[in-house]
């Protein structure tokens, strides 16, 4: 006789493995949804993150806690897998794909695009946060960073000690931005002359989110994907470097309490 408590015991004592299995199912489901429901228009990873946020919502409703799904005892491993240690570890690992020689090909325009792609969304994000009543520099900076990408937002928020709801907001902003980029890029591609490697690199630097850029470019012209992804991979690193530092000090100087 298998009692539910026996299954729960196995899942709880192997919390991290439970998280791997659950996230794997979510990723697989998202890939299927992306393929069959959106015909590849929306990248599977963006759907997976949305499912993650939705699960956190229901987890929060069910437990009344502050850590989303990780507050469900059986699913506490989600907290380990999505915690700061493994997150920073995995993000650092993505830098391994950057090729310095190829990066040089992006040239001055790529660098200019990268800088603008970090500054512009940040300013827009901070402005939106101001309009919705946020005044403390930590929250403003975290939400502004979320408008850069959904990685820069939580990294900045964690570094500055922002509250969990603000971090969730910054992730949601970044995810929505990525989805808008994926869906919007094929629609505006002609308008913004997105038909050559150079503009693809400019595009990658400005839009940033790797899933948004690769999804958007794939839906526009598959041949442009590597060029866009090349500059986009720098985007998150640059954002993680300047958002909790330079941008925070500037924000704190302007909006000091």
């Amino acid at each position: 006789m298998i009692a539910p408590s026996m299954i729960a015991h196995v899942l709880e004592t192997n919390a991290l493995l439970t998280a791997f299995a659950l996230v794997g199912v979510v990723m697989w489901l998202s890939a299927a949804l992306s393929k069959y429901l959106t015909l590849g228009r929306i990248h599977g990873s963006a759907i997976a993150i949305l499912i993650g946020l939705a699960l956190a919502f229901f987890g929060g409703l069910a437990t009344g806690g502050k850590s989303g799904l990780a507050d469900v005892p059986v699913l506490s491993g989600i907290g380990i897998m999505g915690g700061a240690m493994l997150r920073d570890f995995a993000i650092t690992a993505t830098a391994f794909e950057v090729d310095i020689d190829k990066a040089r090909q992006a040239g001055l325009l790529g660098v200019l695009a990268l800088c603008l792609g970090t500054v512009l969304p940040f300013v827009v994000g901070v402005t939106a946060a101001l309009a919705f009543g946020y005044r403390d520099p930590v929250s403003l900076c975290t939400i502004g960073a979320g408008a850069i990408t959904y990685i820069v937002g939580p990294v900045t928020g964690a570094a500055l000690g922002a509250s969990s709801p603000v971090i969730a907001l910054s992730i949601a902003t970044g995810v929505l931005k990525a989805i808008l980029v994926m869906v919007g890029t094929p629609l505006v591609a002609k308008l913004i002359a997105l038909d050559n490697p150079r503009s693809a690199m400019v595009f990658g630097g400005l839009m940033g989110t790797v899933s948004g850029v690769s999804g958007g470019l794939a839906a526009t012209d598959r041949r442009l994907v590597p060029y866009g992804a090349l500059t986009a991979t720098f985007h998150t690193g640059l954002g993680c470097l300047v958002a909790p530092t330079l941008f925070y000090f500037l924000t704190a100087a302007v909006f000091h309490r």
Partner: protein
Amino acid sequence: MTISGVAILALCTLLGAFLGDLLGHLLGAKTNVGGVGIGMILLIAARYWLTRHKRLSAPAKSGVEFWGALYIPIVVAMAANQNVVAAVKSGPMVVVAAAASVAVCFAAVALISRLGGPTETMDEIEARERAEAGAAAAAGLAGEPVT
């Protein structure tokens, strides 16, 4: 060895975190400042050095790449333990911030890609490459095919 790749990655991440803490302390921020970014730069430097000295083995590489490939699932897990219930209460801001920043960035792409003057489109590049390959074949030039 695979573990050497994982170890290099861990050392870069740890050193980045330490330097980030140090930088934060020096700047009086009392938080980690750019630790992840510094770790990424260290890893890029480490890979560059190892590749130049031919010390980067395939298993070591796979040890790093495995964790890089796991970053989206880890971000999904991270999304799943956020306080979304609290975030939903201030929903419209997310829509405004995201839509406005995408619109501004699209406009900037149009502006900057036109700064550099006209350039070959992907179709033109492929047409030229096909023409060059055809010309080379016609001239009977043996050797490396044009890629």
